[in-house]
């Protein structure tokens, strides 16, 4: 049996564009301007400082990432945003992420970014919109997490009674639906992209600002992951067992994965196997009715 993984990574990466290496096209971002404004956005406990010279853009970031703005000045990484005029945008283009000499190059029609983890610095060239930096943050967090045995997952997640539950599935499987049906005592972490981090022998789910159809950020809280449910809509509610290899295959299909990088593929594969060996994974067949939450425990 063979299955091509439906990863979010699209296509291979051009080594050069128009004969010019990407590293040379950095628009002088290494020179810092005197009037930088900053906001520290801490997702998954990883503070990232975003620097800009544009007050309106800063306010937009503060508003969009409101629950995730850190009062601390400490940051693990710094990103300088160089805002381009509105003409610079092609939202339909594929994203490409490549590593060269310890530097990650991230590119889509609407942004170009570079990040050097060892130097803890990066640059983002984009227009003044929230979607480009959101994509860059997602990519950066997938790369940070991969080194630590964690990942971002296409899944909604919520905390109830101190336990985190993840609900994974492709678009239309019911991630947002099950979030909407959650009882009042549940804390919604996200309805779209779950943050899974390994801490010692256990896995923690963190809230993320990465929203789906609910169009609102999750709560900035965390809890140990008790179970991952693979969503399927059906005629009645029920939890069904699932084989280990199928669980890992389904997990891999839903892990956010941007870079076409062999070392990273191996890390993600190992992370999926370790996670599946530690956290119960079940199939959750459900009808869109809040009683489904009675069997989630």
């Amino acid at each position, binding site marked *: 049996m063979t*299955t091509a993984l439906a990863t979010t*990574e699209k296509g291979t990466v051009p080594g050069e564009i128009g004969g010019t290496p990407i590293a040379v096209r950095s628009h002088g971002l290494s020179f810092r301007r005197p009037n930088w404004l900053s906001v520290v956005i801490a997702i998954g406990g990883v503070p990232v400082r975003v620097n800009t010279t544009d007050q309106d853009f800063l306010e937009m970031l503060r508003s969009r990432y409101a629950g995730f703005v850190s009062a601390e000045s400490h940051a693990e990484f710094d990103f300088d945003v160089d805002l381009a005029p509105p003409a610079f945008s092609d939202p339909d283009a594929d994203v490409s992420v490549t590593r060269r000499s310890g530097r990650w190059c991230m590119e889509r029609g609407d942004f170009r970014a570079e990040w050097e983890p060892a130097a803890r610095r990066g640059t983002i060239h984009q227009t003044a919109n929230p979607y480009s930096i959101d994509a860059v943050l997602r990519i950066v967090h997938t790369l940070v997490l991969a080194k630590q045995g964690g990942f971002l997952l296409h899944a909604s997640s919520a905390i109830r009674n101190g336990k985190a539950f993840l609900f994974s599935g492709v678009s239309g499987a019911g991630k947002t639906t099950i979030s909407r049906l959650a009882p009042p005592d549940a804390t919604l972490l996200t309805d779209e992209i779950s943050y899974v981090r390994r801490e010692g022998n256990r896995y923690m789910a963190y809230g993320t600002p990465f929203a789906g159809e609910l169009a609102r950020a999750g709560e900035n809280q965390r809890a140990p992951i008790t179970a991952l449910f693979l969503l399927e809509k059906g005629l009645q509610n029920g939890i069904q067992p699932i084989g280990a290899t199928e669980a*890992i*295959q389904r997990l891999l299909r839903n892990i956010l994965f941007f870079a076409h990088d062999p070392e990273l593929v191996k890390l993600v594969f190992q992370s999926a196997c370790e996670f599946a060996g530690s956290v119960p994974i079940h199939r959750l067949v459900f009808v869109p009715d809040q009683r489904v939450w009675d069997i989630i425990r």
Partner: protein
Amino acid sequence: MAEKYISRSSAIAARMLGGEMMVMSAVDSTFFTLNEVASAIWQAADGRTPLSEIVAAKICQEFDVDRERAQRGADRFVDELSQHGILLVSGQPVEETDSSLSPESR
């Protein structure tokens, strides 16, 4: 027909679980689940043992199948995995490129 020697690529991640071998290409992220028979071929892919010998020793002796059918199945399996660069096929014996990735060492 010329003899084939098969070896595992180093650009893969693999893990045995519940009698099945999961193999993922690090190049194109293609994921394979190998059943018991395919896993036996995979584990015997040392680059030095001819495929026909693997079929005779590992498949025909341990599974209920005649030599010809087993060889046809093995050829198809090897062709498919080699198309994804997961198995490397040579007309000559080869040294394994990266023994650290063999399933036994994990």
